[in-house]
């Protein structure tokens, strides 16, 4: 049994339910994992340099570079956290180490971070677009392409947009768009993240090569070194300390202030923990690879990029004109023809739009995920989680998040600097809480760790986590310094976090009372057994069992059909519910109350009463999953099920259900078993499919054709050893060759010979409808005999 699992002594009148605490995932490569994180982390390259320079002066890029180097250390804390496999998300990790109050505070800070990601990304993207439009207006005016009427509107001057207002308007439009997409239920895809990162990489490579050439060509000098004498803080950058000389008097303090103003360059780092559980095996090695890719990419793009920007863009225009669209400024001051620079700037804006608008979406998804998680933890009342009537999404949480984001955008009036300063508050405090939790867990958590932040010094029996403690101290001191130097951020962050903390505390109390009652009821009926992973032994079933996937307690006809047609003395029946979890909930294992809710209680009560009405025994299983289909195939594989039964979906055909299951089967790592999939329709007729590679059902005429060819071949001498299978092998080899030579022609012919092809290529086959499959009395099918290979029978 896993760490922290609860062994409940069996009671005779309670039904045993195995609750899997590990989320069943579809695994992704480390490249994809890195792409997901970089979509968030990489977006800060578009605004971090400008914000830092406004705060600390021309030596800001060195601090950005320093932050990017320090990000290696912060990332290593996350790698250690990921390698621990402790139960729960950020909230649970901190709760385990620091208790409930700190956990709620850390989630409040994290929410501040997440919610501000949207506005800062949206406004920044708007700044890039508005800047480009203004540049195009200037170019058009130089060629006399602007009509007089338009000049008149701008009192004879070149038409120019108010960049801040235009950026705010853009951010509002994009946020509203993603609000609607999220209410409808957006499908997340690592493909999209990978594609965006591929395009971004192309841009980064061009940017770096061209920028280095420009620097060499122009003989540009490096920015002033990051020493106290070179720090020029603005009044806003000193916040509450603006009337003191502390920054100048204590050099190190000044450096810490500057570092604090650059810290938002590593925002998005926390996404690594979110994708960790989805990384394919070997997990730790791939996690480290992903972390290395992220580190190199962000160091080059954000760190080196900011440095080159200061070297290329002249001082007189860098802050006044390009502070909020630094990369556009770089494009305009490269060596080369103006048209080429304008084209590249347009490309930069397109990439910026893709990555920054994606970050708005990520912020809504991330915030929704975090609030859903704390809601599942009982820290928010169920009211927030109530699903949308039509789309089934947690629309109330989404509305709340987007409303806060829109208010933030309007309040900022499109000023990236204000947003960036506030954003840093959430970033630094969530990192600080996490590192503190990890530090304390070094002493409290004695379980296995895949990796530890180095260096660690052993004194006697005690190990001193020097590396981890150092990282935490740097984060903590930066966070404290930020409290005094970021006036707006401190006030906004404290008000925001206090509000969230208050809401969490009140909700938790309300929920505790409610849950205590539900728990009592549940424990009277069910005995819940936690298992980290699912196996035949844990569920106590024999091989060749029937797995029945259930979801809606109003549509359990397929369970009735299964029980009607299965002798449970010979074949075990497992009733399984895949509990869908939110994005981010795969960070760590889930707790019982997160998985087994009131809904599961009702569902399993109904399932048990149906089984009782047939006088048959069933095993119950709850599996948390990100994808239902993957969860079903993985469970069927683990339980060695020979048959999976499902009801007919009200949104897709049985054939499409089988196709989805087939896709899940294909994505599953070896070893994997084939099984039969039955879709029971509401009228009790059954569609039968075989999942996994299988001997195809051959038409009688095809069998005869093979036999006819074989008979013909047999007329010739020396063909004694040729069998029917050799003919099929040759035919397939030739088909494969033809397919490689001319795919279209082969596909055309295949389509012609098949009236109703299965959707795309599939790893399932539909068994032909027969009288038997259409009758209610049809029993669960077993593996079909192999088709004849020695002649038609």
């Amino acid at each position: 049994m896993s760490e922290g699992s609860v062994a409940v002594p069996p009671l005779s009148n309670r039904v045993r339910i195995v609750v899997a605490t590990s989320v069943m995932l579809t695994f992704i490569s480390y490249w994809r994992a890195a792409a997901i994180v970089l979509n968030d982390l990489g977006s800060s390259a578009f605004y971090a340099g400008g914000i830092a320079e406004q705060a600390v002066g021309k030596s800001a890029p060195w601090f950005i570079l320093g932050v990017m180097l320090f990000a290696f250390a912060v990332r290593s804390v996350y790698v250690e956290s990921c390698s621990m496999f402790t139960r729960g998300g950020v909230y649970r990790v901190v709760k385990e180490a620091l208790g409930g109050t700190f956990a709620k505070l850390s989630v409040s800070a994290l929410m501040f971070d997440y919610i501000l990601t949207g506005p800062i990304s949206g406004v920044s993207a708007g700044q890039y677009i508005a800047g480009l439009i203004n540049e195009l207006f200037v170019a058009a005016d130089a060629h006399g392409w602007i009509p007089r009427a338009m000049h008149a509107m701008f009192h004879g001057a070149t038409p120019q947009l108010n960049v801040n207002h235009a950026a705010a308007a853009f951010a509002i439009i994009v946020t509203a768009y993603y609000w609607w997409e999220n209410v409808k239920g957006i499908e997340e895809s690592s493909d999209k993240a990978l594609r965006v990162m591929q395009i971004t990489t192309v841009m980064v490579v061009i940017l770096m090569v061209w920028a280095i050439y420009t620097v060499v060509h122009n003989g540009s000098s490096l920015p002033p070194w990051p020493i106290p004498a070179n720090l020029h803080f603005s009044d806003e950058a000193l916040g509450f300390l603006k009337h003191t000389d502390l920054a100048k008097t204590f050099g190190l303090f000044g450096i810490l202030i500057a570092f604090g103003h650059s810290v938002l360059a590593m925002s998005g780092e926390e996404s690594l923990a979110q994708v960790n559980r989805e990384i394919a095996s070997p997990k730790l090695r791939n996690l480290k690879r992903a972390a290395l890719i992220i580190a190199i990419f962000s160091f080059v793009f954000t760190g080196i990029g900011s440095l080159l920007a200061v070297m290329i863009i002249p001082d007189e225009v860098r802050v006044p004109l390009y502070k909020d669209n630094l990369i556009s400024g770089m494009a305009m001051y490269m060596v080369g023809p103006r048209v080429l620079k304008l084209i590249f700037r347009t490309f930069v804006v397109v990439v910026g739009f893709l990555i920054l608008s994606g970050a708005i979406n990520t912020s809504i998804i991330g915030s929704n995920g975090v609030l859903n998680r704390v809601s599942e933890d009982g820290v928010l009342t169920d009211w927030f989680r109530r699903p949308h009537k039509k789309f089934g999404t947690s629309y109330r949480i989404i509305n709340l998040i987007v409303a806060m984001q829109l208010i933030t955008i309007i309040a900022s009036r499109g000023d990236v600097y204000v947003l960036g300063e506030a954003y840093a508050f959430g970033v630094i405090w969530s990192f600080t809480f996490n590192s503190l939790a990890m530090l304390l867990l070094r002493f409290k958590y004695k379980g296995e760790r895949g990796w530890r932040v180095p260096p660690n010094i052993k004194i006697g029996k005690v190990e001193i986590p020097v590396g981890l403690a150092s990282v935490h101290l740097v984060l903590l001191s930066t966070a404290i310094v930020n409290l005094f130097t970021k006036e707006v951020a401190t006030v906004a962050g404290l008000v925001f976090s206090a509000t969230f903390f208050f809401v969490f505390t009140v909700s938790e109390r309300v929920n505790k009372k409610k849950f205590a009652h539900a728990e009592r009821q549940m424990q009277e009926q069910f005995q819940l057994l936690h298992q980290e992973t699912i196996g035949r032994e844990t569920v106590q079933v024999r091989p060749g069992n029937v797995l029945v996937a259930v979801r809606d307690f109003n549509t359990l006809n397929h369970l009735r059909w299964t029980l009607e047609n299965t002798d449970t003395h010979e074949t075990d029946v497992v009733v399984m519910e895949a509990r869908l979890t939110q994005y981010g909930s795969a960070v760590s294992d889930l707790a019982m109350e997160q998985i087994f809710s009131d809904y599961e209680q009702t569902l399993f009560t109904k399932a048990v009463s149906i089984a009782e009405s047939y006088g048959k025994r069933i095993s119950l299983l709850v599996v948390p999953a990100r994808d239902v289909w993957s969860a079903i195939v993985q469970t069927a594989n683990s339980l060695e099920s020979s048959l999976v039964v499902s009801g007919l979906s009200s949104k897709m055909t049985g054939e499409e259900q089988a196709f989805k299951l087939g896709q899940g089967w294909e994505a599953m790592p070896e070893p994997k078993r084939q099984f039969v999939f039955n879709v029971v329709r509401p009228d009790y007729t059954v569609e039968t499919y075989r999942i996994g590679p299988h001997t195809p059902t051959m038409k009688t005429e095809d069998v005869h054709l093979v036999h006819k060819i074989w008979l013909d071949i047999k007329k010739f001498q020396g063909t004694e050893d040729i069998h029917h299978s050799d003919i099929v092998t040759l035919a397939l080899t030739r088909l494969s060759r033809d397919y490689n030579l001319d795919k279209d022609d082969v596909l055309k012919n295949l389509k012609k010979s098949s009236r109703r092809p299965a959707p795309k290529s599939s790893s399932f086959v539909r068994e032909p409808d027969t009288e038997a499959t259409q009758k209610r009395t049809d029993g669960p099918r077993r593996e079909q005999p192999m088709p004849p290979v020695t002649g038609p029978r």
Partner: protein
Amino acid sequence: MGFSPWKTNAIVNSHFAIEACMAWKKQKLRLVPESEADSATSEIYAEIKHALGIPYVNPMFQAYAAYPEYFRLLWNALQPALETREFFSAAERIAAESYTRVHNYLSVPDLNRKIQEMDFSAGAQDELKDVIDLYLYNNSVLLLICAAQMQAFENPSAGARPATEPAEHPSHPERPILVQESNAPPETRKIYEDIKKTMGTPFLNTSYINFGRWPDFLRVYWETVKPVILTPLYEENRAGIQQSALALAAEQPRPLPLSPAQTEEAGVSAGDLNDVIQVTEFFLQLLSKQLLNIAFAKIGLEGGSHSTAAA
């Protein structure tokens, strides 16, 4: 015709008609489902399915099957008519007219957008569109059969004329997935009840039991079509479809030999005949409504009455 309680060629107020016939329906309208049919009836059911190219037996035939003598007589009379091309082209015209009426006179929302929002898969969308085509075809044929019977009861003198053979009509071998009331989830059952109450029928037409396979679609569809059903404009169009069906039935080259005298000769009792006429009038009204409702669904799935695709 002294035995007819309602004059079929007059536009009757449907609400009055529903109230007036509800008591009769409760007492008299009995259906013989396929699973409960005796061998002779089952044989006729199979022949009907084959002749019409549909995979199920509509409640209309199940209602006639409650009068075995008449049912046998009806099927014998109907077979020659179903062999003519004119019969099915008349049914096609009825279906086209109902589509045009709904498109031109009623406001149909974009149901296609709604099912997209509901995340219906491509296969589910195709399946839904296929069954709607099936019901549009089937209901128009059934309405014509009802109208032909009514013509036979009221104008028995019409003689046979030359006809074109063989008949050409679509074939729908795929049996639709039906969610009977007993198997339906509570939400769907509630909608079923509302449909029966609104349509004034003690049973559900096959199309609705089929739509129950997509509960979200059924809900949206019924929410949009129900207010339309209750409008005078809808009733006017329903009566128009019924009139057209009666007129097209009168033009058929092979009228049904089902005059009161002929049915009496064949051994159908006067009481049964009276009931059969009431059943026919009831289905004449119901099927003309059904056609409008199905056309409504079809236009809705084509993007609604404001879409160019539906024009």
